[in-house]
């Protein structure tokens, strides 16, 4: 109903004191991934608040630690805060699955800058938007890279049984077809991978794809290297995290990381603004976080409230720092790219888009 009237004039009196929410792991083992996003979001807020000094928008953090079981209660908390008009997140696929039904019922818009499980878009949630490509493109891209660039003929695939990791690994398995020489599943929080190591080494695989996150990827590759395995370790966005290198140390060298996230140099303005604020290059999904927040902030600027935000986002079509921001009927991003990265000398460097 009252979608356009109040804030359109931009007067201080009509200021809604709106908030946007940041939903993801800000503490816990996967905190880095959440913080990279949060940094991007904060940058977007800075930009907005500089322009709207009389009616600032604040950020509310919902720290799920990446744990799906904590997600519903946090969603409820966000929903109950009527000032919150949109959510950036949930950052991970698992927590998205747990929390998004509540957001959907409450009509609170969520734009995830990072959750990549394809099935998330199939639930008919009206409030679900994804500002990046999903694993239905990342998976085939990873498979393509393994086949075409690495020229691997014997590939081993391991997943961590999570919503994200298993979903992605299954897609890779399908695409690689008969060249998959072995499969294994590990558990999150596992540290001893001796059985998997034996399976990989004995399979004679020259490449290993792991679908999962960095806390497991680091010890896995470390133990593989200790056992003398020489193949290429291929992982995806869940491992694109400095802590992977910090912990795997030399064993991380040469790891290939795919990610539907743009390298920092694609958006030089953003890169320099980010660097000025955080003293480092934008990292995994910082740009996507910035873009997601920007969409919501644009909505606030346009006078939207919680109820009217959904339609605003649906109709959104603007160039962001990472891509053209536009969603299809299921809330998927229209403009999709997957990039490959490589660990070199303790740094993650871009090796270009996987086409």
């Amino acid at each position, binding site marked *: 109903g009252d979608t356009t009237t109040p804030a359109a004039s931009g007067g201080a009196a009509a200021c809604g004191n709106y908030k946007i929410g940041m939903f993801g792991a800000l*503490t*816990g*083992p996967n*905190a*880095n991934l959440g913080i990279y996003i949060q940094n991007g979001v904060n940058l977007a807020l800075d930009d907005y608040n500089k322009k709207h000094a009389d009616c600032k928008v604040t950020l509310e953090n919902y720290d799920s630690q990446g744990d799906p079981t904590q997600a519903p209660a946090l969603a409820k908390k966000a929903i109950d805060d009527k000032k919150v008009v949109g959510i950036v997140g949930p950052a991970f696929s698992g927590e998205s699955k747990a929390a998004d039904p509540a957001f959907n019922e409450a009509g609170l818009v969520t734009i995830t800058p990072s959750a990549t499980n394809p099935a998330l878009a199939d639930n008919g949630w009206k409030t679900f938007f994804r500002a990046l490509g999903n694993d239905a493109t990342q998976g085939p891209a990873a498979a393509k890279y393994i086949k075409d660039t690495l020229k691997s003929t014997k590939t081993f695939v391991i997943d961590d*049984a999570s919503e994200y990791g298993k979903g992605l690994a299954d897609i890779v398995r399908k695409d690689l077809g008969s060249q998959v020489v072995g499969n*294994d*599943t*590990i*558990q999150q*929080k*596992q*540290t*001893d*991978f*001796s*059985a*998997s*190591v*034996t*399976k990989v*080494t*004995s399979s004679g695989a020259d490449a290993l794809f792991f679908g999962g996150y*960095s*806390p497991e990827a*680091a*010890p896995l590759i*470390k*133990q593989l*290297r*200790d*056992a*003398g395995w020489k193949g290429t370790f291929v992982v995806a966005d869940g491992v694109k995290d400095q*802590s992977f290198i*910090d*912990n*795997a*140390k*030399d*064993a991380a060298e040469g790891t290939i990381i795919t990610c539907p996230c743009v390298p920092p140099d694609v958006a030089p303005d953003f890169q320099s603004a980010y660097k000025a604020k955080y003293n480092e290059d934008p990292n995994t999904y910082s740009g996507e976080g910035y873009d997601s927040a920007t969409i919501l902030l644009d909505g606030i600027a346009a006078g939207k409230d919680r109820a009217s935000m959904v339609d605003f986002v649906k109709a959104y079509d603007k160039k962001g720092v990472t891509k053209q921001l536009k969603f299809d009927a299921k809330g998927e991003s229209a403009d999709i790219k997957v990039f490959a990265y490589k660990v070199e000398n303790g740094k993650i460097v871009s090796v270009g888009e996987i086409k």
Partner: protein
Amino acid sequence: MQNLIDNFFSYTITGLTIGAVYALVALGYTLVYGVLRLINFAHSEVFMYGTFAALWVVMILGGHPGAGVGQVIFWVAMMFVAAMAMSGLVAVLLERVAYRPLRKRNAPPLIALISAIGASFVLAEIMGLRSRIAGWVGLDDTLRDYVRNSRNNAGLPTIIQPQPIFTIGGYHVTNVDIFVIVGAIAIMVILDQFVKRSRLGRGIRAVAMDPEAAALMGVNRDRVIQVTFLVGGIMAGAAAVFYMLKIGITRYDAGFILGVKAFTAAVLGGIGNLRGALLGGFVLGLAENYGSAVVGSQWKDVVAFVLLVLILLFRPTGLLGESLGKARA
């Protein structure tokens, strides 16, 4: 199954190395169970502190891959010193803070379990919050580097470069494998002898069976308990070093799963029985690995627990039985 047959020795050696770690940690459970008849729930944290001590000492000494033999020996020796000291200290503190006050109040055994659970949370969380704590204390930035990302993994540089020493059934047994297995067994033999020779073992059992009668024999209960915790802690420290050499990564909550496994190993062998812990550790490590080979790594823990249940059904007091008997009807 074919996989297991083809790579039998590989699974066996890796099973033995992790089994050795289980066994050493299991000793702590078994020792404390032996004297207090309760599950020292926080023992997993005692182990976890050892892993960090081992890690930090290497970081402080600037351990790095590819160093000479002499240097490596020095680093490893320092890891043992640091981890054993740290774990021993934590274990003794734990006894002081979480158990002794309860004993003085004649608390029922179950509440001691709760106190231990509380202590376990506190210990793990302190480690998980160490960056914050270091911040408060005003540690300078160089030091804070050791405690950065305190909820995340902390990895040890590969200081011993694994090198195949010999090959068995197609598997290259490395120097690290041999060091872990032989080292753990050696430590356990020493402990076994120490307990036998030192009256400690008998004191432990006497206190467990009848504290009053033990006092009448001149057994100092508090001392026996304290020494028991200390010894259990030192063993956990040794386990921590082997763990770091083999797994290479630790975390504030790394103790939990390992603790559950080690406790399972202790029960498997017959809790309260030192040699049982050794046997239980190895059996569990092997079973897990063989099981993973046959039914997939994701069923690893299920294999472990099913094995435990089966063994207890047929041998209700574990493989080697409890060394503590029961009164008759």
